[in-house]
């Protein structure tokens, strides 16, 4: 029988008992008197309370005690005493047993409903999955179920259709609504060569794409897996709660027996009074509010953040994020766009650019890409230079047009003379947060190229918001001091640590940890050690798989404001856990002495029915308070909170 049916059954049978309670003072009794009460309560005990007793007995045999133990012992005591009292012709308390069962079932019924809505985030994510896809098989487009889509399949997506799996567009363009996975509210335009994410919605165009990740490898599956793990994880604070819960129920039973003995033997109260106090203790002490305080808040908090494209991996990360004092950022790709662009060319533009492009044509350096892009835009003919030779830590040299040419960073000044005008220009460009490369031919520096990696639009806002939260911001970069400081000034970062070798990032994080817990935000492969070293590693989702693996928090969007939101949500969730625990704990600790009749001299006492109602309310208030996390306001207002995910 479901909890709901058990509740309805006991409610119907309890109603006559409730009516009788009010009519007895008027001299109106139930037909059949005490015997009717006995039969009604017996039915309630057998049908509605039966499972409590069954479970309590099963637990008892395993040397365990749980909330059912308390409910079973409390109601059975009231019931058995009333049976004895009925035969002995004394006052009976059948209604106490029946009401307590009804109220507790009512509480459990609501709790069950609320728990389901708290854990809904995962199933909503899974529901996003497309059911089938139009796949090219033997030159024909055929509709196949999602499970049969394989890596390498060419899939057609028409307007309004869901994209089945992750992949890369091969032909066509379209705008795609990715809000359900990334939390990004604006639809994005995608063309051939762009990545698409499974389970996102195609809006207006038709396109073909090649599946690159299917099944459990898709971004959505990984998100689902991460959210599942986060929701079942335990915050460290829970461990101390568990220890309390383990000894709580037996301790309560002992307190109840002591209560009865003290009232009956030492104070000389009547058997009935002593018993009612003892039963109230047992009923009010149920530790279930304590037990669900952490998990429900964790579930709602991680579920809500997942909707915004912020994946918090577990309760430990959540608790750690709450203590963070310093936020360290990697520069390239995190604070900046990560796509450097040529902004200035000093000297004879055409020559400088041509020489530079010829030198960089086969380089994989990100700055080289910027120079080549510029050369392409200016329609410069690029022919690869010959006889490449690296100038260790400074640049490269090679033969261009039969002459020795070179390109490299400002350390080349040691080898070549830089005239005063160029030197001034270089200092000026660097102070504008631009990286300057020197270009030369035949032992002469002929010009400078300034390259800039512009800060993301969201960077300045995010830094200001972090500062408003009292956090210190630090930038770690391999770039030189002047460029780094210019960027820092532009976005408002407190401290700059420049000229950091990629392998030393983790060491710098460690040094910063001496002053307090550190969060590290990064995206590259070389950020992985720093992400793991930091108390909280925040991986930008646009980053590499390994970075995502190392981070405790993963931001699906490439928006720095999400760092602020992640920290704020963690704090909110953790504070809610503490609040829940406080209420659950206060309730149990204050409730027991009141129920035991310690304050009876002041006229403050509980009867078992009120205790049962109170117990139901305490669980409900904890679950409700967790659910309210969904509604709590974020100061860093997320743009897309209302979206379904």
């Amino acid at each position, binding site marked *: 029988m479901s909890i709901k049916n058990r509740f309805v059954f006991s409610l119907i049978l309890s109603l006559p008992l409730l009516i009788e309670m009010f009519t007895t003072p008027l001299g109106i009794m139930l037909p059949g008197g005490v015997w009717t009460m006995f039969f009604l309560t017996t039915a309630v005990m057998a049908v509605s309370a039966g499972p409590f007793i*069954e*479970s309590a007995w099963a*637990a008892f045999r*395993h040397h365990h005690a*749980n909330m059912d133990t308390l409910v079973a012992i409390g109601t059975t005591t009231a019931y058995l005493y009333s049976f004895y009292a009925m035969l002995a012709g004394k006052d009976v308390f059948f209604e106490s047993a029946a009401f307590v069962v009804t109220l507790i079932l009512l509480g459990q019924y609501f709790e069950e409903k609320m728990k389901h809505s708290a854990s809904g985030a995962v199933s909503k994510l899974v529901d996003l999955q497309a059911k089938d896809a139009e796949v090219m098989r033997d030159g024909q487009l055929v509709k196949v179920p999602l499970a049969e889509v394989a890596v390498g399949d060419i899939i057609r997506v028409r307007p309004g259709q869901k994209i089945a799996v992750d992949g890369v567009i091969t032909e066509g363009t379209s705008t795609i609504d990715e809000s359900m996975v990334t939390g990004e509210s604006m639809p994005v335009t995608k063309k051939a060569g762009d990545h698409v994410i499974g389970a996102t919605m195609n809006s207006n165009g038709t396109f073909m794409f090649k599946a690159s990740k299917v099944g459990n490898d898709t971004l959505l599956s990984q998100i689902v897996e991460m959210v599942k793990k986060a929701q079942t994880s335990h915050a460290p604070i829970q461990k101390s709660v568990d220890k309390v819960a383990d000894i709580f129920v*037996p301790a309560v039973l002992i307190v109840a*027996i002591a209560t009865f003995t003290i009232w*009956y033997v030492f104070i000389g109260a009547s058997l009935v009074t002593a018993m009612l106090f003892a039963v109230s203790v047992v009923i009010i002490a149920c530790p279930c509010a304590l*037990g669900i305080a952490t*998990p429900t808040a964790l579930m709602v908090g991680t579920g809500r953040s997942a909707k915004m494209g912020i994946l918090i991996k577990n309760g430990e990360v959540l608790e750690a994020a709450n203590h963070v004092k310093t936020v360290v950022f990697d520069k390239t790709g995190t604070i900046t766009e990560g796509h450097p662009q040529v902004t200035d060319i000093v000297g004879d533009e055409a020559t400088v650019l041509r020489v530079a492009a010829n030198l960089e044509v086969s380089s994989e350096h990100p700055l080289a890409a910027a120079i080549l892009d510029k050369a392409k835009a200016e329609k410069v003919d690029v022919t690869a230079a010959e006889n490449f030779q690296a100038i260790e830590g400074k640049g490269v040299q090679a033969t261009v047009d039969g002459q020795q040419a070179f390109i490299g960073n400002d350390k080349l000044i040691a080898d070549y003379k830089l005239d005063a005008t160029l030197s001034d220009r270089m200092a000026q460009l660097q102070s504008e947060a631009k990286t300057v490369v020197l270009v030369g031919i035949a032992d002469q520096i002929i010009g400078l190229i300034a390259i800039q990696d512009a800060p993301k639009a969201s960077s300045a806002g995010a830094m200001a918001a972090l500062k408003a939260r009292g956090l210190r911001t630090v930038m770690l970069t391999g770039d030189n001091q002047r460029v780094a400081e210019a960027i820092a000034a532009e976005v408002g970062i407190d401290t700059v640590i420049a000229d950091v070798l990629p392998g030393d990032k983790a060491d710098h994080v460690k040094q910063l940890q001496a002053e307090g817990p550190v969060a590290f935000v990064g995206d590259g492969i070389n950020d992985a050690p720093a992400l793991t070293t930091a108390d909280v590693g925040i991986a930008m989702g646009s980053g590499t798989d390994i970075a995502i693996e190392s981070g405790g928090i993963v931001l699906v969007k490439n928006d720095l404001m999400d760092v602020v939101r992640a920290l704020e949500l963690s704090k909110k969730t953790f504070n809610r856990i503490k609040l829940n625990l406080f209420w659950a704990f206060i309730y149990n600790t204050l409730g027991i002495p009141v129920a035991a009749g310690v304050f009876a001299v002041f006229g403050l006492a509980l009867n078992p029915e009120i205790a049962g109602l109170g117990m139901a309310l305490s669980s409900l208030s904890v679950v409700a308070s967790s659910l309210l996390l969904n509604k709590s306001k974020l100061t860093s207002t997320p743009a897309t909170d209302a979206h379904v995910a």
Partner: protein
Amino acid sequence: MTKILVLIVALLLIGFIAWWFFGKHTTAAVDAAVTGSSQDVGVEVSGGYSPSTVVLKKGVPATLTFNRKDPSSCLEQVVFPDFGINEFLPQNEAHVIPIDTSKPGEYDYACGMNMFHGKVIIK
């Protein structure tokens, strides 16, 4: 006289509760039966998990078959925090949960309220 009797009974009861719930009561671990290329252990859920400790062989695909006899809503969910498993156990029905045995170690699991505990050892 009655009061003295009540007092004695109460003290005895308290002593019994303390011994029964707080005393050391050991439970034996049960090894999984390996059949062909897979292994499975049945776990009865009734006032706790029996057996509460299960030993699985590393690398062999494994399943735990839970059968919840207990009507309590306390035990209706089983949670393996390390594996990200949080499943509802239908009452009086066998419910199979696959366990990833690729990494050796001790993995605790618990009911939804984290009051009843079990353990899976993979070695």
